[in-house]
């Protein structure tokens, strides 16, 4: 980062107050990735923050046959028409892609552009949207927005097909402005109507986006103070040059990478302004965040409720339970019990996240997940993890050392007592 201005986003440089220690590395992997093995923690401890963050940003480490296998699994899910198999495919990616950050970002955009198969009812469309979100997850927001608004699943979800000249449907228009770009207060009800008119003609035929000129209202529209015979592309161009989208993206990213009350309004404004200067480059913003002192600050460690996917997969990775693979169908089922049913966000607002992940039902679900994990029930046949063997493998042979090892591996510090199960059931295991 060579930004010359005085900044809320100054780079993290280890110091006596903010040492580059196991706790911060654990934090990096837990917050920006989906947990880490002991080997990865040690490797990054040696390498220092620059290289460690590079690795998170770059990804890598996927096995050679990952791509062909994930393609096989994804295609089979699509041809089966079984959405559970598509959920399992995503879990396969999360477990084995070697680039957990991209999967986290894809999940973030799945939440931002929340589209549910409940209405779309089409596995192929849901997969295409997911591929699209992943492809643009760290790119320019403009490219992402242009792709996702013309995405078949999105168009079905927000009734684009019903939006015709003479009888506009405002669903897509409203959410485009309220949820995807501007936010409440930055547009009027007239804008909603006018943008709906401009979006007429964009429709889905045979499962694909199609522009049907006969459906398009080519009259003059007025939106956000501009006037013209706008079509959908014009609308997106106008929206993308407004001020608010950058701040909404910045907020989304800060929800993902920061805990409660860490980021000040000033910091958010500065990140938004940086996004505007960088053509809404999401990758730039993510890198700025992950290299920042704010990200590694004391306040930001362990003060965010882990979303169900992180909560579930973190220990699986840390405990090296991926070979042989756990049942990804079971993982998808558990995620649903824990309140994060992939491809079924609760509504257009997506999962509210944060503290709302934790309810009576999902807390009980989390406890039961830990039981299942410790009993090895995520594998078929059962394969309970053996922390003592793992500890020995990494050079901890006495029971006292093994207990410390479990605490450091799973929580990033050695203060927790008790066995693996006890640690995983602590309040601290819900946070990260």
């Amino acid at each position, binding site marked *: 980062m060579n930004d010359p201005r005085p900044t809320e986003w100054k780079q993290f440089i280890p110091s006596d107050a903010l040492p580059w220690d196991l706790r911060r590395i654990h934090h990096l992997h837990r917050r920006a990735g989906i947990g880490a093995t002991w080997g990865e923690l040690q490797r990054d401890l040696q390498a220092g923050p620059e290289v460690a963050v590079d690795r998170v940003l770059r990804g890598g480490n996927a096995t050679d046959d990952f791509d062909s296998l994930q393609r096989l699994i994804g295609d089979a899910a699509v041809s089966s028409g079984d959405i559970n198999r598509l959920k399992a495919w995503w879990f396969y990616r999360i477990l084995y892609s070697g680039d957990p950050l991209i999967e986290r970002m894809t999940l973030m955009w799945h939440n931002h552009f929340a589209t549910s198969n*409940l*209405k779309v009812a089409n596995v192929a469309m849901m997969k295409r949207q997911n591929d699209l979100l992943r492809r643009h997850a760290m790119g320019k927001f403009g490219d992402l927005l242009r792709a996702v608004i013309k995405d078949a699943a999105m168009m079905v979800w927000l*009734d684009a097909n*019903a939006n015709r000249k003479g009888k506009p*449907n405002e*669903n897509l228009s409203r959410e485009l402005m309220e949820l995807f770009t501007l936010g409440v207060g930055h547009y009027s009800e007239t804008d909603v109507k006018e943008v709906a008119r401009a979006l007429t003609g964009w429709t889905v035929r045979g499962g694909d986006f199609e522009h049907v000129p006969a459906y398009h209202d080519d009259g003059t529209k007025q939106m956000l103070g501009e006037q013209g015979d706008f079509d959908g592309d014009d609308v997106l161009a106008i929206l993308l040059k407004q001020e608010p989208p950058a701040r909404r993206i910045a907020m989304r990213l800060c929800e993902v990478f920061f*805990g*409660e009350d860490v980021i000040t309004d000033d910091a958010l404004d500065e990140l938004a302004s940086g996004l505007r200067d960088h053509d809404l480059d999401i990758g730039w913003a993510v890198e700025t965040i992950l290299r920042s002192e704010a990200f590694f600050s004391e306040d930001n460690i*362990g*003060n*965010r*409720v882990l979303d169900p996917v992180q909560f579930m997969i973190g220990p699986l990775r840390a405990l090296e339970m991926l070979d042989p693979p756990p049942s990804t169908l079971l993982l998808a089922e558990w995620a649903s*019990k824990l*309140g994060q049913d992939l491809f079924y966000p*609760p*509504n*257009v*607002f997506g999962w509210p996240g*944060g*503290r*709302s992940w*934790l*309810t*009576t*039902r999902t*807390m*009980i*679900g*989390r*406890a*039961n997940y*830990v*039981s*299942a994990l410790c009993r090895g029930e995520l594998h078929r046949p059962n394969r309970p993890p053996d922390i003592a063997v793992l500890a020995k493998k990494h050079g901890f042979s006495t029971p006292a050392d093994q207990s410390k090892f479990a605490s450091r591996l799973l929580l990033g*510090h050695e*203060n*927790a*007592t*008790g066995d693996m*199960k*006890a640690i995983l*059931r*602590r*309040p*601290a295991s*819900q*946070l990260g």
Partner: protein
Amino acid sequence: MKTNRRRFLGHGSAVVLGAMPSLVSRAVMADEGTRSNRNGKILVVIQMSGGNDGINTIVPYADEGYAKHRKKLRLPTDRLLKINDSVGFHPSMRSAADLLEQGKLGIVQGVGYPNPSRSHDTSMAIWHSAQVGDEDVLRSHGWLGMAMDAARKKTDDPDMILVGDESQPLAIQSRRSTAVTLSSLTDLRLRQPAHAQPKPTSDQASEFSLAQFVDQTMQDAIATASALERNTEGGADGSAKYPTTRIGRRMQTISTMVKSGFQTPIYYAIQSGYDTHAAQLPSHSRLLREFSDATKAFLDDIEASGLSDQVCVMGFSEFGRRVAENNSEGTDHGTAGPVFLAGNRVRSGLTGTTPKLTDLVDGDLQMSTDFRNVYQEVTQAWLGISELQAAESPSSLKLFDA
């Protein structure tokens, strides 16, 4: 951010999730095992899927059209459970008749909407969304979902719960409220109660309020799970007897959740099978018995728990059947039918005009009450949500006691 969940314990005693310390159990005992949403009203909707034959449900036995149109399907007058000198319950609805006698059952007659659709899907979508029109009308949200959106009363538990294994009905879909499906109580049971764990003292995070929140949520979840265990073991005093039917089990699940302190205001259960095109008598009889028995068992159970002023059950179907029977000893898709409201606070008895079987439109009953007016009463008078858009036309319908 919400932090104040139900409190059974003071702050600060960190409990390890999965443990069931005696402290928690005692605290729950002290609260008599019912941790209910004490102020909030609860609505339980039973969807009678398939199109219930309202004519053979609330039977207009004195109407000369009844014997005329129902030859094989006519229920003998002497077996009906008479409500007054012109209508009576289907003989298998003994439980419903008992509820009526106790002043706990309201029957709204002839409920429907203009230009009725005879398609299951369209008519159900109309009832779900409260948007009348053909199948092309876009219906993104349900009437209960919209009610919850308008109420904006956020609790930690879902706004709406479908109890069953069907996919979520449009009725509980919304723009921003939460609806979840719960197929069984297993998902709400701690699989491994285990032993008490020593209170962790050295977690660095536990000084922060977020950690306290997590801790509190865990304690609440454990307390709920333990209340649930006890409520599952045969009800408050073992007196709750549910029929072992699917709808019976679902109603029992709902009552267990209500008694265990779930804050959810809307529960939804589906009873299928009402599409009686052939050999209707035995199946319809069974369905009505199951519906009535489950409803009565549920309300008895709720009453034994002292929660009867908070709970109301509503039963509806997407349409009635045609007045004239078909040639297969069944009935085809028709129009208006009865809606049931059951509970301590409902205005008991018959409401609305009894449909006349001699005054038909194309062989179908004319509706006398618009279902949107029923919804309006339920949302406003029962759920206390007045922010919703009013029904098409105002009505003087009064379905609840003041």
